[in-house]
Every structure is written in structure tokens, then in C-alpha cells.
């Protein structure tokens, strides 16, 4: 068993970490995500992950065929059996 003096700094560090975590978590709680009616800016085309939906679709089709795996992206095969 170590002497009590060695434990004390660790206790203090623990307290600091808990305090910092509590502050960080409280920061998350006060953050207000945009409400459903405030998503006009997020809905703009330049805010999308894929700038070109057709291009993204084609890319995804090629990717799934090369990787021999489908699903997860909402783009399935074209029904031609070549997927």
C-alpha cells in the first residue's frame, strides 16, 4: 500500500478531470441543434455531402459491383443481374 501522500495528487487530478468532463457535458446540453423548421440552409444543394446525386449514384453502383457487396446506401441493382 503506498503512502497517503502519493494518492493525494491523483485524487486532485481525478477531481480536475471530473470537473472538466462535467463542464464539457454541460456544454453539449446547452447546444441547441437546428429545429425541423430551421433546416432551410442545411437543405441547400451546396450543403450536401455529394454535390452531384447522379455522379454519386453511378460511383456507388460501380463500388458495390467491384466489392461484390450491396446495400447500406439505398442504391440497389438495376435488375439486370450484372451487379
Amino acid at each position, binding site marked *: 500500500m503506498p503512502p497517503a501522500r502519493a*494518492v493525494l495528487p491523483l485524487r486532485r487530478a481525478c477531481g480536475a478531470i471530473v470537473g472538466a468532463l462535467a463542464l464539457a457535458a454541460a456544454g453539449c446540453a446547452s447546444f441547441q441543434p437546428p429545429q*425541423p423548421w430551421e*433546416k432551410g440552409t442545411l*437543405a441547400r444543394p451546396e450543403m450536401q455531402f455529394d454535390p452531384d446525386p447522379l455522379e454519386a449514384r453511378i460511383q456507388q453502383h460501380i463500388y458495390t459491383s467491384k466489392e461484390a457487396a450491396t446495400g447500406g446506401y439505398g442504391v440497389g441493382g438495376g435488375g439486370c443481374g450484372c451487379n
Partner: protein
Amino acid sequence: MTVVLLSSRRCALAALALALTAGALAANATAAGTGERAPAFSLPTATGDSVALSGLAGKVVYVDFWASWCAPCRRSFPWMNELHQRYAGRGLVIVAINVDRSRVDAERFLAQYPAAFGVVYDPAGASPAAYAVPGMPTSYLIDPRGTIVHVEQGFGDDRKAALEARIRALLGDR
């Protein structure tokens, strides 16, 4: 050594508990639901007149929250025009509340999808906040006494018939 280990484990537990409670505290506002009194609003139309829900007492009111960037709204507008044409004479009032920040966006939408019914503007978003609108679009069917009788979140072609039946039943009740 065991004391050090124990205290560090307790520290981690305390931190975890704190993080969890902080997350749980971020509670959501409750949405205006069926059976509740419809929150009041008074909003301007394009011509500068104002439409107040309190002035529509005794009517069956269909309040629709919409935005120019809301894709299903493009399909709901022609349907609401049909409703207006069929039931306005029998006591149905459709109030479409636009929540766009910019009026120009709303006008561009209306040029493409004209509305025969009443359109009002709430760029500040006070009325959707009062109703705690869960998604776009959301419609509230309000009976002549001002009580919400149905909340329709989103708009689907397969829901048209059921909604119209609800409206017809409300109009016939009186």
C-alpha cells in the same frame, strides 16, 4: 497500489455518471398533440392582412407548416388546393404557414405550386416552436372548438384518402 487503482476506477465511474446525467438533462420540448388546444397564432399574409386562429373558431382548420425546401410540400400543395375547392364552402379553412427565413424563397415556390388557400408567413418561427413541429411538413387538423384532432407528420400520397375522410367526418359532425 490497490488504493490507486480503486480511486482511478471510481474517478472513471463518477465521470461517466456525470456525462450521462448531463445528456439526460437535454430534454426535448413536448409537441402539440391530439386532444390538446391548438396554440394560438396571428400571422401576416402576402397582402399584409393577418390571419388569427382565434378568428377561425367554429371552422374546421387545417394548419400546414411548410417550407420552400421541403420536397413533400410540392405534392401536398396540389392536394390542399383540391381540398380547398371541395370543402371551403362547407366550413374548412386551410392555413399554410410558411417557415422560410427568406420571403423570396417562399414566393418562388408559390410561383411553381400556386395555392388557392390562405398562406401566411412566419420567418421568425414562433408558431412552429409553439406547436413543436416534429418535421417538415406537419399538418394539424383542428376542430371547430379549437382542439387538435389529428397530427399528420410528413405527407404521403397513401395518406390522402384517410385525411380527407377525417376532414369530411369533422365537417359532417356539426
